[in-house]
């Protein structure tokens, strides 16, 4: 009898707490998001004039063409292309510093960068944690300016100005690291021409 009562209490309290924290609370946050910050709540999705999605302001994209700044290497290729899961995905290499596959992979990456005339920097050589990193370091962006300017037939100063406008600084100038949002930067370049 005592145990029946004990489990009765457990079941009832589970039910009511579930209603509060797993139903009411998420519904409330969904409503707040929809009402006050709909752009962010739906994933900061960027659209073209035909209102087709071209990406998210927060999610990186793979770039291979010379007229674009390149992103960091990604083990999941930014959840894009034919190999992307229909659900979307994220992920990292999880290679240990002692794993012989790591220097092999970075060697290939460094050779590719050198062939393109870009000085290899750590962010362009190491893969990111999410596989979706939207940023590259300021140095990596600067190193790519001559290539992009040449491909687009633009003055390097002009490209540098646009690059500087795409810098996302540290929070309050202190926390985190500054980076250049590659998608925003390439979008700004496309708008120019």
């Amino acid at each position, binding site marked *: 009898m005592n145990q029946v009562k004990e489990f009765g209490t457990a079941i009832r309290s589970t039910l009511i707490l579930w209603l509060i924290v797993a139903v009411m609370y998420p519904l409330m946050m969904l409503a707040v998001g929809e009402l006050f910050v709909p752009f962010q709540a739906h994933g900061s999705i960027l659209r073209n004039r035909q209102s087709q999605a071209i990406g998210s302001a927060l999610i990186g994209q793979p770039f291979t063409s010379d007229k674009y700044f390149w992103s960091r290497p990604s083990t999941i290729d930014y959840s894009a292309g034919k190999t992307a899961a229909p659900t979307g995905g994220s992920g990292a290499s999880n290679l240990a510093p002692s794993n012989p596959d790591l220097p092999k992979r970075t060697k290939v990456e460094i050779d590719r960068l050198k062939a393109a005339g870009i000085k290899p*920097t750590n962010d362009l050589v190491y893969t990111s944690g999410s596989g979706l990193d939207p940023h590259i370091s300021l140095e990596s962006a600067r190193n790519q300016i001559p290539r992009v300017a040449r491909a687009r037939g633009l003055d390097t100063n002009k490209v540098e100005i646009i690059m500087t406008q795409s810098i996302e600084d540290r929070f309050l100038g202190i926390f985190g690291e500054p980076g250049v949002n590659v998608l925003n930067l390439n979008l700004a370049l496309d708008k120019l021409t």
Partner: protein
Amino acid sequence: MWQGLFQIALTLLPIGIITPILGKYLAVVFEADPSTRLRSKSVLTWLDSVFSHSERAIYRFSQIDRDQVMTGWQYARAIFASNIVMGIFVFILLITQAGLPFNSTGLIAPTWDTALHTTISFLTNTDQQHYSGETTFSYASQVLGLGFLLFTSAATGLAVGIAFIRGLTGRSLGNFYVDLTRGIIRVLLPLSIVIALLFLIGGVPETLDPPITATTLDGATQIIAVGPVAHFESIKQLGENGGGFFGANSAHPFENPNSFTNLIATIAMISIPAALIHTYGIFAGNTRQSWLIFGMVFGFFIISIGIAAMGEYGGNPLINAQLGSSQPNLEGKEVRFGWAQTALWAVATTGTMCGAVNGMLDSFMPAGGLVTLFNLFLQIIWGGQGTGTAYLFVYLILAVFLTGLMVGRTPEFLGRKIEKPEIILASVVLLVHPIAVLIPSAITLAFPETLSGISNAGFHGISQVVYEYASASANNGSGLEGLADSAPAATGLWWNLSASMSMLFGRYVPILALLLLADGMSRKQPVPMTTGTLRTDTVLFTSVTAGVILVLGALSFFPILALGPIAEAFQIHNL
């Protein structure tokens, strides 16, 4: 480098400010002194009445007698009963997800062992994930199932911590259901709402939309997973759960878009376990002692961060040779966080048993691997929600016992004699962890081909296996994720089942022992303090405690550290 260390220091500064405020608030919520009530007529009293009404409604519905005081056994039985009910409920939700709504990507049911491991993992506040959120669980499973356990597992831990503090300071333990309800209604839910709002403003999505198909500038088709993330993310950090909505956890730009959300998330995961030390001080009427303990833990914490940060800043010598200069290790890290915030996070998440990651621990340099493993072994560099603070006092009790033996006096703690039953229970609490970590590790390493699923061969492989069990038993949940621990890998079944055992063992056995220990202490007659009493609120005694912690931790686990990260460091640096 100096900017990195400076921003780490500034990130930690708010902890010192939040600790006394939140610690006081927790003491009021859990009635350290029933006569203190909020007096001022302000928004606080309005909130207080909202909370009281909700609580009364919950007690009425659940038929909880809030004046009923529980013994240690009763408290533990209430925890077991409620956790069994919650676990069965969520397990059913997960395996039936194919037939439930909010499954826009048409996901099928996970394998039974993945569902079982996930349920136990979230139920025990571990949140070890042998799956990727995007590809395995529907919005219904994540929000209605896992999102529910994020709150209850954190509140259960908090309740145990509070009951333990009550017992230690000579009070009755209280009522589990009242503590569970209060923890959620007055602490976790309101703070989660505030943090979720900040996350929303910072850019974290909160939507039921299906994944978005975008055409990139270069013409590729990109699939972007979204979801109701913001509300999930806030309690994930605050409750030290750590189970991410997406596979990449807090490295994912939707879980942690920028340094603003990263700062909030870092502070959120440390705030409650740090504050609970101060809450103890208020219960015991000795905040001098609680500040000393806080200082000791903070000292361990700072040293750990320093070691991890230097390792990442120095980078990987093998890659630096290719680059031609020394550059920080960014493998598995995001540009926006960099080496400093990622190293800080790694230490905070393994110290507090949150287990969320904003950079991949498997790719950390051996220095980071060493301190994260050491944190998991000690379990007190802040420690888990509620339970971590209790472990801290178990170490204190052992230190009292040892120093008592040295000077030849009956050991006493807070005016109560430490006797045989207390030492037995304290030993049980501390022995469970090495047993639940080392025995399954030994079995797994004995069958490297069929069971282990190691992805980084050599010394790092030993770290991968031991880390997985240490994380499970400490109820942390982070992992060296290269390990093939999930379906469809052949080793997934073994990892799911064996890690589940470590999580259950590492969660419920210490909880029972802690409650019985607290119950015993609360029933002892206080002995008056004399000049012969060993004072426990001195720098000397706190230093001895720190030594006891280090010696016990080192004795149990040093061979693993030597074989894993230390050997790997020698290998990389070619020494």
